[in-house]
C-alpha cells in the first residue's frame, strides 16, 4: 500500500527507513534566514513526558533572550492521547498563540496526517523515523530522526524509553535551529530544581541527539534562533503559581480546595511554597492550613467558616466547582463574610472541555447565587496581575466583607508566560472593619449589620473576641441590623438597600481598567484576561491596515465611570472575549444601555487561546459592514 502510494510520484518517495541525508536533499532550497520569528509545535502523546521536553525548550529560548510563549493543547486524559505544545518565538515580543506553526515535530503517529497538513508552507517537518508518511509535500523540509533507536541506546528500561525519546527531539531541534545546549542544561537545572542526576542523564541524551543531527542532517530550512537581550530581567512563570505566590504574600491563612483541572496547579503551588515561606519562627508552626476538601461545596463552606473566624481564606476551582459553590457564595454574600474564590476558567457548560480555555464564567461568577446576588470580580490580564490580585483580593474581601472572585483561565493559569518580576506589595494589609474586645466593651455591644460609616459596610467581631458583648449569630436567613432573625418587610428591604450601597463602595475600590486612548480613533476594543497579548498584537495588525483602535482592558467588575467614558469616546466598540454568549458584551450593554447599539461582540470560543489574526479579521469584517 505504502509503496503503491509513494511510487506514484517520484518526488514524494519515502522509503520505510529513509536516510536522513537523502531526505534533506529532496527538500526545497534554502532562502533568506528567518530568525526568532516562528512557531514550533511538538505533537506527542500525553503522559509520555513531553511536557518536560517542551518546558525545557521554552526556557532555553527564554534564556537566550528571545521573547517566547508556550501553549499546551492537551487532552482530558492521563496517558496516550494526542497532545500538542506550541512555542512561539517573537522577536517583536508578541506572546499570543499563532494559528500557524512553521516547525512541526511529530512523535505521535496517530496525528501525523493532520500535523503534516497543518505545517505552514516552507516549514519544517521533523518526525520520528518509525512514523510512516504516506504522502509528502513539496513545500516542506523533512528531517527523520531515529528517536526509538537513540532511546534504546540510552535507556535500558523500556518503560523509561518514551521519556528519553522526548529528549531526543530536544537535542535534534536544538542542533537544527541553533539553540544553545548550555541554555538547555540551565533549563534542565531549573526544571529538576538543581538535582544534577536527572539533569545529567537528560543532557546526555540531548547531546547525543544534537551530535547525531550535526552529523546526519543537512539543514535546508531557513529557520534560526539567535541570541537577543529581550528577556533580561524578566521571569517566566505560569499564572497559577503567580496566583499562589500572590495569595501567600497576601497572607492567606486558610485554603480549602477540591482537585479540578485547570485549578489544581494553583493549590499545588500553594502546597509547594507555603511550607517554605510561612512557618512562624517563634513556634516553628505553620501560619496556614491547606485542606483538600471532599467536594467544592465543602471547600467553600470551609473557606466561609475560616473567613468568618478571621483568617484570610481562599479556594481555587473551575466552572463545575463554581456551580457547586453557588450555595455558599450566596450565603457569603448575604451573611457578609470575606472569601476569595479563584476560578481558573475552562470550557463549559457541564463537563465541557476540561483541558481547554474559555472565558465563559463571567456572568456566572458576577451573579452567582439565587435571589439578588452580585459579587466583585477581579480579572487578571497577566501573570503579573495574577500575583497582584492574589494579594489584593484579600484586602478587598476583608474590606468589603464579601466573597471576591478572581477569574483567571487555563491559558493564563497553566501556561508559561514571560513577565516582569513581581513587585512586593507596598500597601499594608487592609484587614477591614474588625472591632477589638476593648472597642466592643466601650460601645457595650454593637450592631453587626449597621451602616455606621455610610459605605454600606458594617463592623464585625471575630469569634475568640472575649467581650461578653461581642458575639452575634450569623445566619443566612433574614436579619436586622443587630443580626437578629427578622421577617419584617422593612428590615429586609433596609438590609438589601445597604448591600446595594456596599456594592457601590466596591465599584470604587476595585482596580480600574487600563485604558490606551488613541487620539482620533473611531473604534475601541474592550477585553480582559488572557486575551490581552492577542489584542495588543491585533491592534498593531489593524494599524498596519490603517485602522487605529483604542483599548480598554477591564480588570474588575462592577464597572466604573471609566467604562462609561470609554464608550462615549468611540463610535464602535468591539468586545473581545472567549465565550459563545458574548457575556461581557452583554454586561457592558447593561452598564450603559444608551451605548448598547455601538457595543459589538467580537467573541470566539473553540477551546483554544484567541489569536491576533482572528481578532483582526473579525474586526475588519465587522468594520466593512458598518
Amino acid at each position, binding site marked *: 500500500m505504502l509503496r503503491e502510494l509513494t511510487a506514484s510520484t517520484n518526488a514524494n518517495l519515502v522509503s520505510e527507513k529513509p536516510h536522513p541525508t537523502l531526505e534533506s536533499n529532496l527538500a526545497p532550497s534554502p532562502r533568506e534566514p528567518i530568525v526568532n520569528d516562528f512557531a514550533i509545535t511538538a505533537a506527542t502523546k500525553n503522559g509520555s513526558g513531553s511536557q518536560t521536553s517542551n518546558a525545557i525548550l521554552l526556557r532555553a529560548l527564554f*534564556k537566550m533572550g528571545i521573547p517566547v510563549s508556550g501553549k499546551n493543547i492537551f487532552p482530558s486524559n492521563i496517558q496516550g492521547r494526542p497532545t500538542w505544545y506550541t512555542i512561539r518565538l517573537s522577536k517583536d515580543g508578541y506572546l499570543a498563540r499563532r494559528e500557524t506553526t512553521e516547525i512541526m515535530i511529530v512523535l505521535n503517529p496517530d496525528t501525523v496526517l493532520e500535523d503534516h497538513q497543518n505545517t505552514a508552507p516552507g516549514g519544517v517537518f521533523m518526525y520520528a523515523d518509525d512514523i510512516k508518511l504516506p504522502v509528502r509535500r513539496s513545500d516542506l523540509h523533512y528531517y527523520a530522526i531515529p528517536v526509538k533507536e537513540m532511546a534504546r541506546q540510552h535507556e535500558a528500561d523500556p518503560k523509561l524509553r518514551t521519556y528519553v525519546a522526548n529528549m531526543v527531539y530536544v537535542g535534534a531541534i536544538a542542533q537544527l535551529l541553533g539553540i544553545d545546549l548550555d541554555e538547555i542544561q540551565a533549563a534542565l537545572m531549573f526544571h529538576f530544581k538543581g538535582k544534577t542526576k536527572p539533569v545529567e542523564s537528560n543532557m546526555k541524551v540531548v547531546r547525543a541527539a544534537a551530535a547525531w543531527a550535526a552529523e546526519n542532517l543537512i539543514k535546508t530550512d531557513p529557520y534560526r534562533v539567535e541570541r537577543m537581550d529581550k528577556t533580561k530581567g524578566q*521571569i*517566566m512563570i505560569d499564572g497559577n503559581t503567580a496566583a499562589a*505566590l500572590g495569595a501567600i*504574600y497576601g*497572607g492567606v*491563612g*486558610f485554603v*480549602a480546595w477540591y482537585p479540578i483541572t485547570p485549578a489544581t496547579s494553583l493549590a499545588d503551588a500553594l502546597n509547594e511554597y507555603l511550607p517554605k*515561606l510561612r512557618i*512562624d519562627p517563634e*513556634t516553628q*508552626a*505553620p*501560619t*496556614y*492550613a491547606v*485542606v483538600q*476538601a*471532599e*467536594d467544592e*461545596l*465543602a*471547600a467553600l*463552606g*470551609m*473557606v*466561609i*467558616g*475560616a473567613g*468568618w*473566624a*478571621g*483568617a*484570610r*481564606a481562599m479556594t481555587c476551582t473551575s466552572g463545575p466547582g463554581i456551580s457547586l459553590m453557588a450555595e*455558599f457564595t450566596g*450565603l457569603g454574600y448575604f451573611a457578609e463574610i470575606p472569601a476569595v474564590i479563584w476560578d481558573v476558567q475552562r470550557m463549559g457548560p457541564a463537563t465541557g472541555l476540561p483541558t481547554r480555555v474559555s472565558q465563559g464564567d463571567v456572568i456566572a461568577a458576577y451573579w452567582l447565587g439565587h435571589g439578588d446576588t452580585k459579587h466583585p470580580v477581579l480579572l487578571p490580564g497577566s501573570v503579573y496581575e495574577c500575583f497582584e490580585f492574589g494579594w489584593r483580593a484579600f484586602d478587598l474581601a476583608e474590606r468589603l466583607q464579601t466573597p471576591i472572585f478572581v477569574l483567571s483561565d487555563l491559558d493564563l493559569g497553566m501556561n508559561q508566560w514571560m513577565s516582569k*518580576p*513581581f513587585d*512586593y506589595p507596598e500597601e*499594608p*494589609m487592609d*484587614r477591614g472593619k474588625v472591632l477589638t474586645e476593648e472597642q466592643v466593651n466601650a460601645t457595650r455591644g454593637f450592631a453587626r449589620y449597621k451602616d455606621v460609616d455610610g459605605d454600606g459596610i458594617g463592623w464585625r*467581631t*471575630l*469569634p*475568640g*473576641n*472575649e*467581650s*461578653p458583648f*461581642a*458575639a*452575634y*449569630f*450569623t*445566619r*443566612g*436567613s433574614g436579619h436586622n441590623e443587630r443580626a437578629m432573625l427578622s421577617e419584617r418587610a422593612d428590615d429586609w428591604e433596609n438590609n438589601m438597600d445597604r448591600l446595594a450601597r456596599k456594592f457601590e463602595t466596591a465599584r470604587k475600590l476595585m482596580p480600574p481598567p487600563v485604558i490606551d486612548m488613541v487620539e482620533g480613533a473611531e473604534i475601541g476594543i474592550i477585553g480582559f484576561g488572557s486575551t490581552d497579548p492577542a489584542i495588543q498584537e491585533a491592534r498593531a495588525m489593524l494599524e498596519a491596515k490603517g485602522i487605529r483602535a483604542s483599548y480598554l482592558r477591564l480588570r474588575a467588575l462592577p464597572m466604573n465611570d471609566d467604562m462609561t467614558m470609554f464608550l462615549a469616546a468611540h463610535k464602535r466598540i468591539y468586545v473581545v472575549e472567549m465565550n459563545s454568549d458574548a457575556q461581557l458584551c452583554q454586561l457592558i450593554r447593561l452598564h450603559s444601555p444608551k451605548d448598547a447599539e455601538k457595543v459589538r461582540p467580537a467573541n470566539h470560543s473553540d477551546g483554544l487561546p484567541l489569536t491576533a489574526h482572528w481578532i483582526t479579521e473579525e474586526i475588519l469584517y465587522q468594520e466593512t459592514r458598518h
Partner: protein
Amino acid sequence: MTTVKNGSIAGNGTQATSPSIKMPTPGAGAAGVNIIGLVKADYKGLESTLCNGCGHDSISSQIITACYELGVKPERIVKFSGIGCSSKSPAYFMSRSFGFNALHGRMPSVAQGALMANHTLQGLGVSGDGDTGSIGLGQFMHLIRRNLRMVYIIENNGVYGLTKGQFSATADIGQELKYAGRNEFPPIDLCRAAIVADCGFVARSFAGDPKQVVTLLKAALSYRGTAVLDIISPCVTFNNRDDSTKSYSWGKAHDERINDFGFVMSQEEIQIDYAEGETKEVELFDGSKIVLKKLDGSHDPTDKQAALRLLTEAHDKQLFITGLLYINTERPNLAETYRLVKPIASYQQDKLRPSRESLQKIMSAMY
C-alpha cells in the same frame, strides 16, 4: 444482648448516671456562681420558638447546664448548626457565644473552617437527622474522618418538622405517619455510620433523660476530636405517637442503657463507692475522665467491634439503646494533625506576609 436497665428518667442534678458514683458538686460557690464566676443565666439564650414540649428545647437546657457546670467561658464556645428545627436551637442557648447558622447539611464544613482558623475555640454543633442523615451525610462523614475537635449533636426525631412531617433517613422501616404515609426504607444509623468513619466518641441518648445527656455533653466537650451525640429528641407535632420509636412514650418505655458512667472534671478527685476493679477510667483531652462502671454484660465502649455488633443488633431489632457506644482517645485531632499552635486567625501582617527578600529570591529563580 444484655443491657443495664435504669427506670429513672428524671435527673436529680448529679453528674453520674449511676447513683453509686459520687461526683463533686459543680459550681459550689455562693448563690449559684460557677468556677469562673458566672451564674446560669449567663448561659441563657433567646426564648425558643420551637413547639411546646419539643425535645430540642430539653437538649438546649442540658447544654446550658453542662457548660455552666463545667465552668466553660461562653465566649470560648462557638455554636454551629445547619438548617431545620434543630439548627434553629443554638439561638436558644448561650447568647454570649458566637454562632453560625449555616446551610442545610453544611454545618461540618463551616465548623471546620472556623475551627481551623481558630482551633483554640470549642465547637458545639447542633444538627438534625435530615441535616446530618440526608443532605449532610457526606460532610458528616468527612468531618469525622478528619477528627475536628467539636461536639456534634444530632437532635434526631425521624421527621422533617419545618416542612411539615416528611420521613427522614433515620425513620424506622414500616413506620406510618399521617402526612407521609408508610416509610419503605430502613433507617441510617448515624452512630454506626460515625464509628465506620472512625469517630472516637459516639453516644446515643434520649432527650427525656437529661441526666445522661448532661453527662455525655460534659464528656464530649472534654473530648479530643469529633464527639457525636445522637440524641433521640421527639417531635411533639409530627412524630410523637406512642407507636413511633422516636416518641417520648416509646423512649421512656424502651430506653435500654448499655452502660453506666460518670464524668469527672480535671483536677477533681474521683470519689467512688465501689471496690477496686469495678470501674474503668478513660482520660479525656483536658485531663478530665469518664468513669465507667463495670457490670456483668454492660457494654465496654472501648471495644469498637462490640459497639458495631450492639448497634447492628439494635438496628435489626428496632431496639432503643442509649449510652456511650464507643470511645477512642488515641486519634489526633485536625489541629494536631496540622501542627497548629497559635490560631491562624490571630496572625497579623508581620507573620502573614513573607519578607521582601524572599520574594526577590523566588523571582530571581524564575529566570
